[in-house]
C-alpha cells in the first residue's frame, strides 16, 4: 500500500517535470575512427647517450609505435604530425586545447623522457581535447633497452582509457616461420612482438615443427616436433631454450595446448590410427584419457575457467565441434550448420568460440557462442585456419595460404588478423612466410 502511494507521488512529480523537458534520442553517429594526435615525446636535453640507441629520436620512435598500434585497431585515426600545432614539451605541460581542436583531434597524447644513470624514465598524458582536461597521466622507469615495451604499455593504457577494454599491445606472437619449396618446407619456431618487430627464431629448421602455443605465463611453449622423425608434443622453455618430450607415448602426439592454469597439457594421441584426447599433468606426469571413440578427436581447447573442453571430431561423419566437461563426460555436439567445422578455440572472456569452417571449397574464420548459437563468419578465403585470440578477446590472428600453380608457384603463407566484428582485416608483417600463430597474454599483467 505504501509502495503504491510512493510510486503515485513520484509519478506525478516526474510526469509534470518531464512535460517541460525536451528529450531527443540520438541513435546515429559517425563511425569514423577517433581522431587522435600523438605528439612525439620530448627528450630531455640532459639525457645520457646509450650504445645502439638513438636517444635524440627516441621520443619520436616511441610515439610512432603508439601511432602504429592505434592505427592497427581500426578504432583510432592518428593524425599527421605535420599538422601539429605545439612543441612536444610545451604541449605536455598544458596543451592549448583550442589549437589542437582546430586540426580536428579529439584526443591528444603527450609525453617526455629522460635517461639518467642508465634508467629510462618516461611519462605520458592523455588529454580529452573537447573537455579540455587530462584523462590519465602515468610514468614508468625501466632499462633503456625496454623502450619498445614502454611504447606498447603506454598504448595499452590509452586504449583501455578510451575503449573501456584491456589493451593487447604489450604481447607477443609465437608462430611457425616457413621457407623453401612447398613440398619441402623448412619450418622454424619464431617469436615476435605483436607488431611484427623483434623476431627471434627458437629452432634451427632441422626438423619439422608445428602448432606452437604459449602457456598462460608466456614462459613456456608446447608444440609438435618431428625430431628424429618421431612426431611428438614437446615443451620448450623460451628463456633457457631447454626442450623436452611431453610424456612417453608409443605413437604420435599432436595438437597440444595448455590448460588455463598452465599445469596440464591437453593433446591428441594417435593409437593404432585412432586419435583421442589426453591430458598430462606436467608436475605429476599423470596421463589421463579424456575421450575414447573410434573417430578422430583432436584440436582440444579448454574454456578459460578450465571446466569445459571444446574439440573437433568426425564421429558424426565429417568434422564437427563438440563441447564436454573437462573430465570427458557430457559430450555435446554444438555445430549443425552446413559445412565442416574445426579448430575450436575458446575466447579469453569465455563467451565465444572461434573456429575454422569449410564449405563448398572455401575456408572461413568465424565465432559463435559456446553453445553453438549465434554463428558469425568473419572472413572467407581459399585457405585459412587456426584462429588464436588476442588476450582481450577482441581480435583473432590466423594464417592464410594462397592457391598455388604448377610446382607450387605463387604459394605463400601469411598471418592475418581480424576484429570479431568482422571489420579491420589486416596482414601482419613477418620476416618470412608464417603459419600457426599463437597470441600471448599481456606481458605486463
Amino acid at each position, binding site marked *: 500500500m505504501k509502495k503504491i502511494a510512493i510510486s503515485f507521488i513520484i509519478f506525478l512529480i516526474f510526469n509534470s517535470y518531464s512535460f517541460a523537458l525536451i528529450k531527443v534520442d540520438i541513435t546515429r553517429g559517425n563511425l569514423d575512427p577517433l581522431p587522435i594526435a600523438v605528439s612525439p615525446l620530448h627528450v630531455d636535453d640532459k639525457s645520457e647517450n646509450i650504445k645502439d640507441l638513438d636517444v635524440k629520436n627516441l621520443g619520436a620512435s616511441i610515439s610512432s609505435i603508439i601511432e602504429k598500434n592505434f592505427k592497427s585497431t581500426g578504432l583510432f585515426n592518428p593524425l599527421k604530425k605535420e599538422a601539429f600545432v605545439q612543441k612536444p614539451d610545451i604541449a605536455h605541460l598544458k596543451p592549448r586545447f583550442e589549437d589542437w581542436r582546430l586540426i580536428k583531434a579529439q584526443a591528444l597524447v603527450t609525453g617526455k623522457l629522460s635517461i639518467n644513470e642508465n634508467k629510462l624514465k618516461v611519462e605520458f598524458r592523455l588529454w580529452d581535447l573537447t573537455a579540455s582536461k587530462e584523462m590519465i597521466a602515468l610514468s614508468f622507469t625501466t632499462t633503456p633497452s625496454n623502450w619498445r615495451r614502454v611504447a606498447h604499455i603506454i598504448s595499452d593504457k590509452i586504449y583501455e582509457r578510451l575503449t573501456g577494454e584491456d589493451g593487447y599491445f604489450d604481447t607477443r606472437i609465437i608462430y611457425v616461420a616457413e621457407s623453401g619449396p612447398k613440398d619441402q618446407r623448412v619450418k622454424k619456431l619464431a617469436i615476435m612482438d605483436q607488431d611484427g618487430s623483434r623476431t627471434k627464431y627458437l629452432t634451427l629448421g632441422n626438423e619439422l615443427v608445428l602448432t606452437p602455443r604459449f602457456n598462460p605465463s608466456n614462459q613456456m611453449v608446447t608444440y609438435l616436433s618431428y625430431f628424429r622423425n618421431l612426431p611428438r608434443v614437446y615443451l620448450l622453455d623460451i628463456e633457457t631454450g631447454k626442450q623436452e618430450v611431453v610424456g612417453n607415448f608409443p605413437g604420435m602426439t*599432436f595438437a597440444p595446448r595448455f590448460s588455463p592454469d598452465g599445469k596440464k597439457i591437453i593433446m591428441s594421441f594417435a593409437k593404432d*590410427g*585412432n*586419435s583421442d584426447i589426453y591430458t598430462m599433468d606436467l608436475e605429476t606426469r599423470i596421463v589421463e584419457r579424456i575421450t575414447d571413440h573410434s573417430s578422430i578427436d583432436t584440436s582440444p581447447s579448454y574454456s578459460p575457467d578450465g571446466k569445459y573442453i571444446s574439440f573437433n571430431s568426425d564421429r558424426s561423419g565429417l568434422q564437427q565441434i563438440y563441447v564436454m566437461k573437462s573430465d570427458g563426460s557430457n559430450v555435446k555436439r554444438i555445430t549443425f550448420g552446413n559445412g565442416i567445422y574445426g579448430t575450436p578455440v575458446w575466447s579469453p572472456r569465455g563467451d565465444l568460440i572461434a573456429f575454422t569452417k*569449410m564449405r563448398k571449397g572455401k575456408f572461413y574464420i568465424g565465432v559463435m557462442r559456446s553453445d553453438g548459437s549465434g554463428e558469425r563468419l568473419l572472413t572467407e578465403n581459399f585457405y585459412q585456419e587456426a584462429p588464436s585470440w588476442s588476450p582481450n578477446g577482441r581480435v583473432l590472428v590466423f594464417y592464410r595460404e594462397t592457391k598455388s600453380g604448377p*610446382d607450387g608457384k605463387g604459394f605463400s603463407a601469411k598471418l592475418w588478423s581480424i576484429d570479431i566484428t568482422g571489420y579491420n582485416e589486416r596482414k601482419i608483417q613477418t620476416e618470412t612466410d608464417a603459419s600457426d600463430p599463437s597470441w600471448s597474454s599481456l606481458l605486463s599483467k
Partner: protein
Amino acid sequence: MKFNKNLKNVLLIIFATLALSACSTAKKSQTSGDVYTGTDTVEYLASGVKDRVFFATNKSSLTSASRETLRKQATFLRKNKKLNVTIEGHADERGTREYNLALGERRANAVKDYLMTYGISGKRISVISYGKERPVNSESTPLAWSQNRRSVTVKVK
C-alpha cells in the same frame, strides 16, 4: 516424316556429345570418385609392386585397386623377410593442419592393418603421418589433391 528427321538430328547430337565426353574422360580423368587412379606419381618397391595407394577426401578406406596394390606389397614383403617398411600417411591441403595429421595417421594404419591381415608382422611396419606437410604435387588443383591423399610404403634402410 519431318518429326523423324528432327528426332534423328537430336539423337545425332546426343551421340556426338556422349562420344566427346567419353573421349575427354578417357584422356583427362585420372580419378574415380575423387580417388586418384593414375600412375604419374607412383614409384615401385619392385617390378610391378606400386609403393602407394590413394584415398577419397576425408576418407581412409581402401579401394579395390588399393587392396590389389597392397596384396602385391605383402607378397613382396613375404619374399624379403629382412626388409622393414615405414608407411607414410598424407592428406591434401584442404583440411585443417591438426585434423590432417590425424587423417594421415589413420590412412597409414589402414594400410598397415591390411598388410598384417596378409601375414606381415606388425613389428616390421612403422607408421608416420605427415598430414598436409609433404605434398607430392604442390599445385592447388583437384588432381594434385587426389595425388596427395596417399599412403606410401617406404623401405627402411
